[in-house]
């Protein structure tokens, strides 16, 4: 059982590290469509983290909301306003 516990914690640590990379890339990206895609990648990694933390109710809410509804709403905002961020 010790190896399974270490595997779960390794996956959690990997999700944390990869989500930090995705957050940094989303912050420094000038094209806002790519920034939204990076934030969707970060949400997907957080969904894996919720699954590893034994919260199935939250996974079932988080997947449609953060991977479907929020990018759609933000993309509609971009399509009506500006797409590129100035310096």
């Amino acid at each position, binding site marked *: *059982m*010790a190896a*399974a*516990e*270490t595997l*779960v*914690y*390794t996956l*959690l*640590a990997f*999700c*944390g*590290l990869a*989500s*930090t990379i995705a*957050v*940094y890339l*989303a*912050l420094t990206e000038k094209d*806002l469509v790519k*920034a*939204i895609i990076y*934030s969707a990648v*970060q*949400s997907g990694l*957080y969904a894996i*983290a*919720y699954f590893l*933390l*034994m*919260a*199935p*109710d*939250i996974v079932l*809410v*988080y997947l449609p*909301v*953060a991977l479907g*509804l*929020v990018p759609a*709403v*933000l993309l*509609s*905002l*971009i399509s*009506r*306003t*500006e797409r590129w*961020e*100035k310096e």
Partner: protein
Amino acid sequence: MSYEPLNAYLLQVFLVSLFVNVALTLYGVFFKPHYTKKVISLTMLSDTLNVFAVFIGYRKWTSSAHPRPPILTEEPSGEAVSRFVATAVDPLPQALVLTAIVIGLAVTLFLTLLGRELYRHYGTLDMREVGRSAKHA
């Protein structure tokens, strides 16, 4: 805590990455001038804090089994319920995080509608130029 050092270190990596996310997204909310970038950073900030809340409710592995989700999968007899209480994770942070996700989505929707009105009124979403033209208006 009688953790092995490797398990403790991996959990610390996860915690520190959450804190770094909070710091980066706070920087994005305050110091990035574009409105849409601020809204994206705000959604990422609230998501990170929700993961931290669910992590607080997690449970240590006993020598026999991993912690279970808070759903009872057997017939509710007396010993099944006591086994359930001994191995399930905390259900209260999960209920609170569900409410927080819904309210965060409502706030994002409202901020999007406000952003469109801002663009219609000022012609730009760069908050520095909005501040300048609002001051000189």
